[in-house]
């Protein structure tokens, strides 16, 4: 028996409706811990060559970790993986809420879906009972509406994942939604579920997770909750949640504004954390066992509608708010609701909308193409675009492919302001004067996402402290000097091992990142749960191995993959920031090359950004190294 794990993998071949339960291999747990590690290893081992991300051969994987569902702060994370529809390479995304713990209580550490159901279907998991049921009556419903219907029909004990019309229509940035507002938003994971004709997954678990030392877990868990409560951020950060960083982000000139044309917005207090509390919030909404709930559930009333919605959190505020210039928090929340119901990632959707509006302003898309006039700062414009995208109506069919492909189609220089890396739209931090964060976005394994590394504090405030420390810090100057580019790789790499480690363990990183909760807790909790001693440093080594593996998967899957896939958009390299604290700053292509050269060398990759054989072998990835001759990166695009 593997303590800390449910001990089984559930496989469902949707084409043949074959349901298989297999023991969780001990070697997999020992070598890859869980969550993101399970996702990466499974994709490497089982993905067939040249798989279409939206074809039946792609895998949809949900995996928790050894600390998921355990008695400790924020043990509710679930990691999802697939070959990414957005990039064609390695893809993963995670969500909080209660799904992963429920899957574990049902007896499964990992769920792997393959094939394609013949018609719209619902997957129901109730402990040992697993069934694929018709869901024609749900197809076409919004994500939130479908969850509401299923809760009414099945009971509230079920933890439910749904997709919306965007997932059904295979929008490349369709998300999956859970618990009325938690999303695995990135890489188009919802499109993969939609391509398999799965509208929803419902899980109910009533079994115990075996742990090595229940008494020790009770003691360590209580200690952990006590220590979280003692952190200044417990009362300082929690009330506003992730949106609490908005003022600091704007103060240091990192707030994406007007499709990343600038990085500062003088209207930011209209959409910051305080505005959420003042105008929207009904209740704090916590993920499983979370003592510091960042979810702010509320009600937004606008001229377009009156809705209940969780959020907006910081990313949504940034990409749908400042980046589309929506100047009222109720408007941002309404757009957030539309995205949730349609099943669209608010990050990518915000970037695509802002790009389309800029194209309209520049005359690259006209009224006939878009179906109406659109403008920054106009909620109706944003909602129109979101509806078109999710239903692939008119211009939405092109925009649904993501900003990279849309810019390739429209041409006329529109790729210069298509803000993405590898085909994944950029999340909520502008960093023309934050070279470490720029490098983090450039080298993030799924594309331009902040979850893999976040070093803005280091870049712009010389701080390695918690986010709460940054929020309460005093402003030093109105104008920031140009940041030194060289010497950033080590900090970025450290963060790229640290943050994803939480994704291996199946827990939330925010107590650590935002409040400064000590990592020693996790070592002790891991030991009482699994019965095995593993230092934080040893866990970080596994995280590093997974990083090499995910890069290798993208190199294996994407023709021509390499250095050229790591560059930021032209806007950041040729347009100085027009105003705000970083006015006049941008990062040159030469500086970008310095970032990449230093990073590749420190990673053990060649000058084209491909892992060297000896690097993979040193990580215990000899099988990956042996597969290199067959990698698609060696073929032309």
């Amino acid at each position, binding site marked *: 028996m593997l303590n800390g794990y449910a001990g089984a993998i559930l496989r469902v071949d949707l084409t043949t409706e074959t349901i298989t339960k297999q023991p969780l291999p001990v070697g997999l747990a020992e070598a890859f811990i869980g969550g993101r590690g399970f996702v990466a290893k499974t994709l490497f081992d089982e993905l067939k060559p040249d798989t279409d991300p939206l074809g039946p051969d792609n895998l949809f994987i949900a995996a928790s970790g050894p600390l998921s569902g355990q008695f400790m702060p924020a043990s509710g994370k679930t990691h999802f993986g697939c070959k990414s529809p957005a990039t064609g390479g390695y893809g993963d995304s995670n969500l909080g809420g209660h799904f992963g713990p429920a899957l574990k209580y049902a007896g499964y550490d990992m769920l792997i879906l393959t094939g394609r159901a013949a018609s719209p279907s619902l997957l129901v998991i109730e402990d040992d009972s697993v069934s694929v049921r018709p869901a024609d009556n749900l197809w076409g419903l919004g994500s939130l509406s479908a969850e509401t219907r299923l809760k009414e029909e099945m009971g509230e004990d079920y933890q439910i994942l749904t997709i919306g019309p965007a997932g059904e229509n295979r929008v490349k940035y369709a998300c999956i939604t859970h*618990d009325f507002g938690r999303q695995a938003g990135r890489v188009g994971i919802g499109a993969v579920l939609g391509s398999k004709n799965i509208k929803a997954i419902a899980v109910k678990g009533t079994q115990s997770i075996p742990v090595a030392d229940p008494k020790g877990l009770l003691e360590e868990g209580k200690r952990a909750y006590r220590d979280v409560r003692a952190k200044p951020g417990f009362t300082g950060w929690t009330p506003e949640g992730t949106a609490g960083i908005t003022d600091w982000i704007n103060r240091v000139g990192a707030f994406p504004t007007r499709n990343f044309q600038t990085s500062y917005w003088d209207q930011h207090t209209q959409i910051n954390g305080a505005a959420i509390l003042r105008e929207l919030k009904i209740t704090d909404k916590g993920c499983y066992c979370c003592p510091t709930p960042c979810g702010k559930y509320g009600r937004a009333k606008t001229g377009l509608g009156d809705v209940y919605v969780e959020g907006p959190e910081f990313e949504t505020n940034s990409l749908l708010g400042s980046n589309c210039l929506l100047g009222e928090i109720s408007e941002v929340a309404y757009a957030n609701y539309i995205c949730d119901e349609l099943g669209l990632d608010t990050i990518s959707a915000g970037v695509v909308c802002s790009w389309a509006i800029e194209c309209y302003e520049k005359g690259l898309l006209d009224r006939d193409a878009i179906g109406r006039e659109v403008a920054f700062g106009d909620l109706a414009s944003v909602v129109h675009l979101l509806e078109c995208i999710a239903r692939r109506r008119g211009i939405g069919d092109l925009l649904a492919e993501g900003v990279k492909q849309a810019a390739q189609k429209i041409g006329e220089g529109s790729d210069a302001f298509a803000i993405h890396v590898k085909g994944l739209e950029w999340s909520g931090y502008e960093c023309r004067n934050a070279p470490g964060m720029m490098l983090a976005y450039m080298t993030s394994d799924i594309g331009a996402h902040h979850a893999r590394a976040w070093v803005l504090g280091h870049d712009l405030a010389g701080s390695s402290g918690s986010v709460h420390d940054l929020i309460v810090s005093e402003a030093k100057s109105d104008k920031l000097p140009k940041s030194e580019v060289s010497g950033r790789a080590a900090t970025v790499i450290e963060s790229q091992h640290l943050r994803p480690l939480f994704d291996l363990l199946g827990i939330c990183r925010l107590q650590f990142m935002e409040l400064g909760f000590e990592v020693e807790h996790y070592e002790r909790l891991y030991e009482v749960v699994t019965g095995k001693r593993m230092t934080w440093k040893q866990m970080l080594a596994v995280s590093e191995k997974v990083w090499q593996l995910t890069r290798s998967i993208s190199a294996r899957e994407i023709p021509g993959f390499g250095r050229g896939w790591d560059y930021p958009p032209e806007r950041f390299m040729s347009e100085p920031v027009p105003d705000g604290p970083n006015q006049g700053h941008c990062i040159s292509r030469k500086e970008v090359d310095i970032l990449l050269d230093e990073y590749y060398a420190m990673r053990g990759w060649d000058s084209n950004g491909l892992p060297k054989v000896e690097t993979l072998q040193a990580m215990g990835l000899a099988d990956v190294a042996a597969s290199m001759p067959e990698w698609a990166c060696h073929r032309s695009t």
Partner: protein
Amino acid sequence: MKLIAKSERCSGCGACRLVCALTNFAQVNPAMAALSIHGRFPAPGVYEIGLCDQCGVCAEACPVDAIEENNGVYLIDADTCIACGECIDACPHGVMFEHAQMDTPIKCTLCKACAEICPRDALQLAE
């Protein structure tokens, strides 16, 4: 002393249910908890906590007198209980449960672990 709920403070995290099962049964399994949380979503967007206030209705319903009061806490005598489920049906707060791995219904023992752990102070002790 009894438990009281401040539902307006609850964020639905469920740590109370997990610590309940871990304290009383040494199990990591919220299905063995003796209290409930109901999320009312999408509207009105609130949580409702269900908990035992030691009202004693379960003891009155028990046909074999297996539930006895001791210092204001009603406890199930496992040797006497016949697991008929009458107490579960009778509980006015819906916070007595059955579980396949348990020989007797699950009932609050007023161990106080939930109130101790709740990070929101949504569960409190009162005289």
